[in-house]
């Protein structure tokens, strides 16, 4: 069964100048975030939304999580329409947002997780066990009782992932989840994601990091300026080099491996 379905979704952000903006330069306008986007994600699949800044990745995650509602078309999660049955959708999803500091700074990591787990209606008998489990899974056991105001960026990011996982969601939404993680934590996180997918968790991950996308995705959705440029299944026979070349050529992005290859013939 498809866990996430986008059907002809159109999303426009309209900018309205502030009231009494007679002296300012702010003007009315609009920007198209998504243009007639359709795709679906099946149970246990890892779909990576890959594209440069402003391509619509975060908008797609926000539409899936009910933070945003579509202007046209529909978004369904676990069979529920996000506009008509937001409550059922929210019970199915876990989201790790790109905003690192979305926690209560004067609560510890454990207290923050306990708070969000309560709002997510995790049964009290399971709450402590699940919190210990996700703290261990994100290597935050030693910082469990530290106030999060003392956390580094990477620790915030790991706590965000832990928060998304504590409710055991059927659909996991991740917005650039490894942006502030070191190489070891990133590798550990990728392994954890593959393990979750094997347990039938559906994962939507937004990133502009090509290496990350091909390392963990079952399928890539290449995005540019709110449109789907192409879809590619990992392991479909296409080599990574062909895929890389296609992506960077289509989006006009700078290939992060290019500067390295330029230096490979020289000396440091």
């Amino acid at each position, binding site marked *: 069964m498809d866990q996430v379905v986008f059907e002809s979704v159109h999303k426009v952000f309209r900018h309205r100048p502030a009231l009494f903006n007679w002296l300012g330069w702010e003007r009315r306008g609009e920007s198209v975030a998504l243009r007639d986007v359709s795709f679906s994600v099946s149970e246990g699949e890892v779909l990576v939304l890959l594209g440069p800044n402003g391509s619509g990745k975060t908008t797609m995650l926000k539409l899936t999580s009910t933070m*945003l509602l579509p202007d046209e078309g529909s978004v369904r999660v676990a069979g529920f329409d996000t506009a008509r049955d937001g409550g059922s959708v929210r019970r199915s999803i876990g989201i790790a947002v790109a905003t690192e500091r979305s926690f209560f700074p004067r*609560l510890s990591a454990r207290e923050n997780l306990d*708070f969000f787990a309560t*709002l997510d209606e995790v049964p009290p008998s399971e709450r402590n066990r699940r919190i210990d489990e996700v703290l261990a899974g994100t290597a935050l056991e030693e910082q469990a009782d530290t106030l999060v105001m003392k956390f580094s960026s990477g620790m915030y990011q790991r706590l965000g992932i832990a*928060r998304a996982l504590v409710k055991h969601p059927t659909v996991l939404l991740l917005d650039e989840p490894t942006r502030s993680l070191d190489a070891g934590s990133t590798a550990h996180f990728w392994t954890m994601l593959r393990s979750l997918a094997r347990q039938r968790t559906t994962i939507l991950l937004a990133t502009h990091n090509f290496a990350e996308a091909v390392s963990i995705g079952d399928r890539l959705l290449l995005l540019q300026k709110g449109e789907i440029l192409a879809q590619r299944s990992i392991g479909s026979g296409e080599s990574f080099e062909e895929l890389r070349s296609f992506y960077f050529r289509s989006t006009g992005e700078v290939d992060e491996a290019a500067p390295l290859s330029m230096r490979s013939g020289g000396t440091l």
Partner: protein
Amino acid sequence: MTSVVRKLYAILRRDLLTAIRHRSGFALTFIGLLAQLTAFYCLSHAIGPSFRPNGVEYFPFLLVGTGLYTFFVMSTQAFLSTVQEAQQTGTMEVLMTTSTPPGELVILSSISAFAGNLVNLTVYLVAGVAVFRAAVHVNVVACLAVMFLSLAIALALGIAAATVQIAFQKGSALLWLMSSGLWFLSGAMFPVESLPGPLEVLAHLTPFNYAVQGMRSALLQGQSVFDLSSTLAALAGFSLLLLPLALGGLSFSMKRARQNGTLSFY
């Protein structure tokens, strides 16, 4: 424990821990309360014992009036701050994706904001009686009835401020209206009967005057629920009008913010 009670406990615990861990702020709140009481005590002494508004001494009159009106303003401010902080730190969007319906979350959060200020109000009144010897003659049932309806009105005001904040990012405008624009209509510091005619009419169109007057009658003059029936009816009327309006406004502004992508704008 039902799910709602568990959530309310979690929110109360979060706010209490945050308040306690802001050590200096926690202490300053109580120092501020005592300083305010001292100022009003001195003011009532300066005016002299001959001024007895509504038949009670001026200091107890001020004590109840300013205590309850401050409760309204500070509760709305506390709730508004919670919403603004959630928008600024990014917790707003995450909270709105939890399994708890947004309306339920807002009401539970506002109850928490009011609980802290209810403690402040109790400390303020007890200190006024114990330290500054304010004369009281309490009818407990009437006090609880007035307080219950005042809480419903405070809840509506808090939700209205959150609505204005989410819709226009200017919840502070409602707070300004309450703290600076309307306070003289509340009867907190002098009887509204001493206002010019049109302003007195205006004062009777706001709920504050009824709450303040009702609490004074119950706390200082020992009037019963029966004696206060018309005041309680007016407060109930305001609650029945303001609460659905505020909840409807919040639901509309949340949906609009989700449509426009402005949920976390501040």
